[in-house]
C-alpha cells in the first residue's frame, strides 16, 4: 500500500468538503458534470457517479466527513478524471478484507469498495489506523 500523492502536472478542478448529506448529493452532481464535460457516455457518467457515491457515504458514515479533490491529468498514457477522497477518520484496519468481495452476501465489510473499484479504470487506497483513509478513483477519458 503506497501513500497517495497528486502529480503536480495535474489540473485541479475543485476541492469540496463533505460535512453533511447534502454535500454528498452536491458533489455527486459535480462529478457527473465533470464526466459530461469530459464527454464520457451516459454509462460511464453513471459508473463514476455511483462509485463516488459509495466512497462519499463511507466518508460521511465512518470518518465524519472529509475532502474531495477533483483533478484531470495523464495517468498511464490516458487522459483521466481523477477523484480523491481524503478523510481523517479511524482508518481501515484490514484494507484487504475491506476490498474483498462479499458485499451482497453480507460477508464483506459492506463498504462498497470492491463495487466502486469495478466501476472505474483505476483504484487506489491508502489507509492508516487512527489517521485516516485516502481513496482515489480514476476514469479514462
Amino acid at each position, binding site marked *: 500500500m503506497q501513500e497517495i500523492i497528486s502529480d503536480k502536472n495535474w489540473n485541479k478542478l475543485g476541492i469540496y468538503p463533505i460535512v453533511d*448529506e*447534502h454535500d*454528498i*448529493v452536491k458533489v*455527486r*452532481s459535480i462529478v*457527473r458534470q465533470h464526466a459530461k464535460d469530459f464527454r464520457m457516455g*451516459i*454509462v460511464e*457518467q*453513471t*459508473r463514476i*457517479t*455511483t462509485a463516488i*457515491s*459509495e466512497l462519499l*457515504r463511507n466518508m460521511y458514515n465512518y470518518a465524519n466527513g472529509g475532502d474531495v479533490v477533483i483533478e484531470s491529468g495523464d495517468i498511464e498514457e490516458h487522459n483521466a478524471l481523477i477523484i480523491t477522497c481524503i478523510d481523517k477518520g479511524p482508518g481501515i484496519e484490514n484494507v484487504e478484507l475491506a476490498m474483498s*468481495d462479499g*458485499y*451482497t452476501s453480507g460477508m464483506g465489510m459492506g463498504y*462498497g469498495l*470492491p*463495487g*466502486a473499484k*469495478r*466501476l472505474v479504470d483505476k483504484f487506489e487506497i491508502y489507509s492508516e489506523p487512527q489517521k485516516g483513509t485516502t481513496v482515489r478513483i480514476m476514469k479514462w477519458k
Partner: protein
Amino acid sequence: MNLDIHDKKIPIIKIRDFLIVSIQVDMHDKLAVQLQSQILHEIERTGAKGVLIDISVLEMVDSFIGRMLSGMASMAAIMDAAVVIVGMQPAVAITLVELGLEMPGVDTALDMEKGMEMLEKKLREKES
C-alpha cells in the same frame, strides 16, 4: 428555520388500490429512509395492495438506494402489498449489476403503464 428544498417530502399518490410514487429528486440517504417508512405508513393507512415506484428520473442508484428499494419490497410484501419499480434507466441497470448489487424480490417494469398491468395481474392471481 432551515427551509431546504432537498428536505421536501416525496409525494405519494393513491389511485384505487395502488400507491404511486415518483422520485423526482436526487435522494440523499436520510430522504431514502424517510421515503421507505412513509410508503409503509401509507400502505397501512390506505390498505393499498400495490406500490408503483417510478425511478425514471434517477440518474444513479447506488448500493444504499438499491438496498432501500429491495428492503422496501420485502417489507411491503409482509404487509400484503406488491412493489414494482418502473423506468430504471439502462445505464443505472448496468451500473447496479457491475456494482454487484442484487435486488432479490424486486419486480421491475419498463414504464408506469406496464408496471400497473403487472400489479393488476398480481392482484387477480392472488384473488383467484
